[in-house]
């Protein structure tokens, strides 16, 4: 294998694997530090994720959210932008889902509900990313800071709306009225029942297919359209992109709006698919998790799906772990998320000089 192919293998496979492994080993250290056997913990975690049907259902339901936010972060990364605003975009996307559902006549067909709510999530999520994108493109405002600010603004806005506008009169809890039945996305366990299989109940609903569908869409968009080509060119070499006649401002806005729209789809899974009403903080943690998923999955839909499932396993397994062991909460998953972002993101090239020196050294010039 010549040197270039070796370096390719290192970059594409070996390095990411090593990074993820390091994150796992670091987590094992944390377990040891709090007097928990990492092997035992892993067993419980895997059992929780796979060991029983309800667990599998939850794993995939969590994975669905991570696919949406992972795709969102990845699209922005391809344009060279870091979208930390996934939390806010997911939250506002859910607002869009809810508003569309609540405004359509309850007797409308489910098909219209599904299309409408998907559209609502996309548009609202995209709009929430539009302002920071515009400010970056046309005013030079640092998109990372503005999107973080917009995360907080989303929280405040949603609290206000839920407490003052959307709350049912006479109710104490800040949530909207229940969505009409026709808008509820079918649960997988219900579909299974209708074709003769009985599986345990779980929040898993057809949103997972929506997620897979959008994964394919993103794959086509990024690698098989001229706009995706322009986005990738800009992210890899902005000077060459200028040479090619690509306009950077348009790329910023295009990629960020698509990114926000994808994050907004979390509303489909959580609200139209599970909660069936707008509640507070349904989005919590998925935006940041999307960053870890995109980094782990190296911004490619296939990698993202795998990473999202992994995170689903961690989330569900983590819940099981918190249930089984007295002094662990689901926050251990947050720790793991952080370590993955650290080793697959900030320190992603840490091992590379050594790997290249050992596996693909420069031959000395004769």
């Amino acid at each position, binding site marked *: 294998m010549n040197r270039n192919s070796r370096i390719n293998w290192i970059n594409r496979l070996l390095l990411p694997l090593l990074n993820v492994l390091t994150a796992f080993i670091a987590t094992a250290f944390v377990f040891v530090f709090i007097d928990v056997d990492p092997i035992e913990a892993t067993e419980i975690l895997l059992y929780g994720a796979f060991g029983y049907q309800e667990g599998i259902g939850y794993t995939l339901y969590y994975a669905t959210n991570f696919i949406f936010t992972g795709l969102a972060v990845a699209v922005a990364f391809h344009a060279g932008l870091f979208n930390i605003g996934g939390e806010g975009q997911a939250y506002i996307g859910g607002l869009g889902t809810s508003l569309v559902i609540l405004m359509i006549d309850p007797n409308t067909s489910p098909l219209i509900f599904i299309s409408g709510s998907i559209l609502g999530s996309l548009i609202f999520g995209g709009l929430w990313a539009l302002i920071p994108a515009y400010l970056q493109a046309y005013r030079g405002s640092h998109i990372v800071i503005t999107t973080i600010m917009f995360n907080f603004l989303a929280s405040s806005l949603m609290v206000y709306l839920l407490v003052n506008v959307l709350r049912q009169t006479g109710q104490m809890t800040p949530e909207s009225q229940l969505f009409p039945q026709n808008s509820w996305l079918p649960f997988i366990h219900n579909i299974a029942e209708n074709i003769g299989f009985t599986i345990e109940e779980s929040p898993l609903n057809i949103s997972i297919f929506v997620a897979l569908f959008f994964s394919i869409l993103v794959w086509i968009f990024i690698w098989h359209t001229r706009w995706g080509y322009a986005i990738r060119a800009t992210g890899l070499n902005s000077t060459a992109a200028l040479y090619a006649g690509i306009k950077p401002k348009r790329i910023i806005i295009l990629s960020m709006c698509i990114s926000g729209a994808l994050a907004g789809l979390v509303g489909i899974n959580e609200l139209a698919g599970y909660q069936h009403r707008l509640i507070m903080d349904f989005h919590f943690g998925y935006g940041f998790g999307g960053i870890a998923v995109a980094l782990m999955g190296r911004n490619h839909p296939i990698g993202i799906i795998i990473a999202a499932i992994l995170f689903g396993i961690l989330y569900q397994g983590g819940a099981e772990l918190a249930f089984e062991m007295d*002094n662990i909460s689901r*926050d251990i998953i947050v720790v793991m998320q952080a*370590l993955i972002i650290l080793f697959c*993101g900030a320190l992603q090239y840490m091992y590379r000089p050594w790997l290249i020196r050992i596996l693909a050294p420069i031959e000395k010039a004769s």
Partner: protein
Amino acid sequence: MEDLLLTFILTLDAAIRVSTPLILASMAGLFAERSGVVDIGLEGKMLASAFAAASAATILGSPWLGLLAGILVSCALSMLHGFASITHRGDQIVSGVAINILAAGLSIILGLAWFEQGGLTPTLTSDQRFLSLTLPGIELINNIPLIGTIYRELLSGHNIIVYAAFIIVPIVWWIVYRTQFGLRLRAVGENPKAVDTAGLSVNKLRYKALLVGGVLCGIAGTYLSVAHNAQFTRDMTAGQGFIALAALIFGKWKPYTVLSACLLFGFLDALAVRLQGVVIPGIGEIPVQLIESTPYLLTVILLAGFIGRAVPPKSVGVPYIKER
């Protein structure tokens, strides 16, 4: 009239308490960004040190040991950030985000393991905390009409970290503008090449800046759990690290302007608490969320260039590589 004045003074009093962690954290961010390193991780460092300080104060019985623990933890995280962004030239934002999430998760996990109180640390007793100090001469001044009230309510009665924060700002100003370290710090942030060709180490300077920031963040975090409150609770920083960042930008990276921005944000926060439920004729009740959002809205407006330009140090966010 008396009432309104008293309310105003009390609000200012609350504002000072709320601003303190912002002041300390934004000064920490100032050092980092002036040297050219983006520090999104202020939030995580404050949270981690809040946890460490409360834990140490409980276990070892002294708020000062808690302060030491808080500072050590915050510095450790700063060095991690430096390792990723300076030595390995990794993405500084990603590193900061990782630190934030790590602090959030680890503080709960360790808290559960050590104290078994659902993530909280045990409530600190009085001698494990920094308590409010009464400034000298209060008996004499107390009876003077306006000044006495101001002295009693506004100036006296804060804990030592609050006073420290306000003293630290002039010290920071002095370090940045009147010392060799400050000159080099500012140079590294504007033109690292100039520093390199002058024979100085860009990386060492940046590490030093992060270390100073680590100490300040450590004090900020300690304040939250050991002085202002009496324990560590989940996510107790509540975004103050980001507000500190916003204040830093709003204050254009200059110590005294940043201090004013922090006080402004603190005041708005205290005002929000006061205005809850208050009805303004003609407008109705001001949504508390609107007032709470003001720091974030102001930052966005500033970044958009509508209230003057916020020009950061030129080399902020760019890892230094000797070019070919």
